[in-house]
């Protein structure tokens, strides 16, 4: 029974291989499940958008007057709809997270580097617009010591009022490759054994780098 289950468990290993669509699906799931914004998948997005455009041209140029053409066209259309849905879901999820953590993202160059140029522009515009509104509606009426958008008061050291993602949040994670023992706590000795196909609920922070290097995926 395990033979066909292994086929079903991971579409990547099925007869059709790991297409960009499957990669995109995984990127979306990771993005949705991770507490922080992940790296923008520049290459993957570009490839997939390219493929979608080409496929749209093919559909437009296919003669659908005979039964065969109309069947194939219907299937192409259906797949295109699925691909576009996935692209939209991915980009929207990122924008939602970006809006929630916009101050923290703009405050940190390493986090800014994970955005696409368009997303960065969006973040800046969004920050300026919501910032102006908040200043107008609230901060203008506050005493001067407390009227900063990113600092709790004048005596704060640095920006201490950012809505940062909670890296200590727990996530569901599946192990893709045997990794062996991983220490979850730099000071203690809270060690877990990560073997292929294991499924854990685990704190995000210790597995952050493993996710980046494709040792694990979120579910």
């Amino acid at each position, binding site marked *: *029974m395990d033979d*066909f*289950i292994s*086929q*079903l*468990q*991971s*579409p990547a290993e*099925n*007869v*059709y*291989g790991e*297409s*960009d*669509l*499957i990669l995109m*699906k995984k990127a979306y*799931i990771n993005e*949705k*499940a*991770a*507490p922080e914004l992940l790296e923008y998948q520049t290459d993957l997005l570009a490839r*997939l958008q390219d*493929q*979608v455009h080409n*496929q749209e041209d093919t559909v437009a140029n296919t003669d659908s007057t005979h039964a*065969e053409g109309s*069947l*194939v066209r*219907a*299937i*192409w259309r*259906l*797949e*295109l709809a*699925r*691909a576009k*849905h996935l692209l939209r*879901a991915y980009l929207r999820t990122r924008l*939602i*997270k970006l809006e*929630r953590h916009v101050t923290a993202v703009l405050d940190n160059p390493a986090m800014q580097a994970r955005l696409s140029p368009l997303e960065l522009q969006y973040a800046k515009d969004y920050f300026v617009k919501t910032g102006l509104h908040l200043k107008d509606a609230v901060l203008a009426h506050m005493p001067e010591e407390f009227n900063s958008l990113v600092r709790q008061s004048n005596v704060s050291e640095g920006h201490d009022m950012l809505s940062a*993602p*909670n890296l*200590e*949040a*727990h*996530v*569901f994670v599946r192990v893709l490759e045997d990794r062996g023992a991983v220490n*979850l706590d730099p000071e203690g000795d*809270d060690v*877990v054994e990560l073997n292929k*196909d*294991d*499924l*854990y*609920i*685990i*704190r995000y922070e210790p597995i952050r780098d493993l996710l980046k290097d494709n040792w694990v995926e979120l*579910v």
Partner: protein
Amino acid sequence: MPVDPSFSPYDLEFFAEDDVVKIVPSFSLPTFSHSSIRCIGGAFGPFKPNIPVEVPLWLAVALQKRNNCRILQPDWLNTETLQEALDQEKNTAAVFHRLPFHYLEISKILFLHAKEAFGTDLLKVKELVGDICKVRLSKINAGLQVLQGPMTVKLNNLSAAECNVIRPFFQGALDRFHLLASVCLRLLP
């Protein structure tokens, strides 16, 4: 406010539709190379009348709706295998039996769009899937009761839908336990 990491049931069905099933096509595509359809996700086919072929579930359902194919009953979704799975599920309290990650979504889609694939077994198969699901959920609930304190929980072979069901509670509880533990550490060195 944390970003809600839960998926909707529609999301899960969408993900499940990439899994492959076997179909028997009733058409061919003589003017297309290898009688297959070149899509973004790969070249699906070859489609030849009465020759079984593996395609993603979304394609199988689309073809079936147009009466262009017959979906075959997956090997793991027949009465014997399911009965075996149910027995194992009942006999092992701590372990979950290995099922396809999207077993609930796939069976739901097939029960809806490919009733014919199951013939006279349809009711029996539905009942078995329902029973398996119930036994697993009660095991999950038992697992939740032993959750007391910050920890890493291992949940091998849990399916996508099951993860999604327990996500809000598990994550909330574990996040809170972790927070309390780290505050304790700071206060009582």
